[in-house]
């Protein structure tokens, strides 16, 4: 079973040379730390920066340079700042190659819910609705089940949707899953996790074809 860092490490392997990547808040933010450093990747943050670098050294933070999680950041050579309209031109115009974000629920048809629990909690969609409506390549990073132990991979979402039929891949603490026309296709198991275990933790239709390999993180 993976922890959050494990999920981030596994997703980092999906990041290819030449990709512009938008990382959501939470686990996705961690992905940047584990991307191979022999490939060229640029991170975009929807609040208006391309070419993000690591966190600043203590004392060197600048309130005017943050990411979409409102964390202080630095930029790398070749970075640029821009306004919100241009930022979403990048996103809506499909110039960003990969979007990685968290979710409360994902349905087997690719629907995603991640912004609101009616009557209980409202985070807001932020840029997520724009991202999922336009991105060609969306990976969801999340725990396989919620705190109550219920599956987050569902036949149908029960929470208000963020986007419809858009998720392509899901990486959880238990598995790597592809969203296909026929449902959740199990691609890889987390180290030490059985297919049976994943099956039980998945409410939606899980497709198991042949032998499912254990994932490697490095």
């Amino acid at each position, binding site marked *: 079973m993976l922890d959050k860092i494990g999920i981030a490490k596994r997703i980092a392997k999906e990041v290819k040379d030449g990709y512009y990547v938008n990382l959501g808040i939470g686990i996705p933010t961690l992905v940047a730390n584990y991307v191979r450093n022999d490939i060229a990747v640029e991170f975009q*943050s*929807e*609040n*208006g*920066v391309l070419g993000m670098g*690591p*966190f*600043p*050294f*203590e*004392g*060197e*933070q*600048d*309130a*005017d*340079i*943050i*990411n*979409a*999680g*409102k*964390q*202080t*950041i630095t930029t790398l050579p070749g970075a640029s*700042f*821009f*306004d*919100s*309209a241009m*930022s*979403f031109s990048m*996103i*809506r115009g499909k110039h960003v190659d990969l979007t990685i974000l968290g979710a409360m629920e994902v349905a087997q048809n690719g*629907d995603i819910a991640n*912004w*609101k629990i009616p*009557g*209980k*909690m*409202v*985070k*807001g*969609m*932020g*840029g*997520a*609705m*724009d991202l999922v*409506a*336009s991105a060609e390549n969306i990976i969801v990073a999340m725990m396989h089940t919620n705190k109550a132990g219920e599956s987050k991979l569902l036949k149908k979402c029960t929470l*208000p*949707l*963020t*986007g*419809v*039929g858009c998720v392509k891949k899901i990486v959880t603490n238990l598995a790597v899953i592809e969203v296909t026309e026929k449902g959740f296709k199990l691609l890889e198991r987390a180290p030490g996790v059985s297919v049976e275990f994943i099956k039980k933790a998945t409410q939606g239709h899980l497709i198991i074809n042949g032998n499912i390999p254990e994932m490697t993180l490095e």
Partner: protein
Amino acid sequence: MISKKVANVQEALKGVTNNMTLMLGGFGLSGIPENAIAQLVKLNVKNLTCISNNAGVDDFGLGLLLQQKQIKKMISSYVGENDEFERQMLSGELEVELIPQGTLAERCRAAQSGFPAIYTPAGYGTEVAKGKETREFDGKMYVLEHAFKADFAFVKAWKGDEAGNLIFKGTARNFNPNMCGAAKITVAEVEELVPLGALNPNQIHIPGIFVQRIFQGNVYEKRIEQLTVRQKN
């Protein structure tokens, strides 16, 4: 040169009254019009509709207006990390229209640029599209979203000149340029009001034509919401 300079924040906010619709720049606490917000608190104008990506935090930014119950309605994309915002929203004290961030930016730009409405794919198939016109182009579905209408836009820039030209810094730019000229009156506050001619005309982010009033802010706290640093080895 047409001068947009006003003496201070009091003069800059002249004409702001109850029941108005205001646009406020900023993302989180970054690039917010701190001085205008402080003055709105002082004026204690009520029943405001505020268009702003966030509502600050409990005790800073638009959170200050929420505390004083000056805001009737928020139009934002994100509530997270502001407990008072979420509480007022869930209890029904505050009317909230949550819209996608890109839609928020573009509805500002539409108002600035004379477009009545835009078609965006964001929110299609979700409750955001409820009651809105949708339409297919090339096999993809889009939602029709209308330009904002606002009385005042309050923006914060890094540097500005008397002609109203603005330059923003880093990610404090965010929604600020898109709100300039998107309301009847745009009020820009700047960290530094530089002499005419000091700004390179090639590097101006927002030409003065989009700005009606400009002043140098008294003080900028520029609070950091999530301080994240690494240690030097």
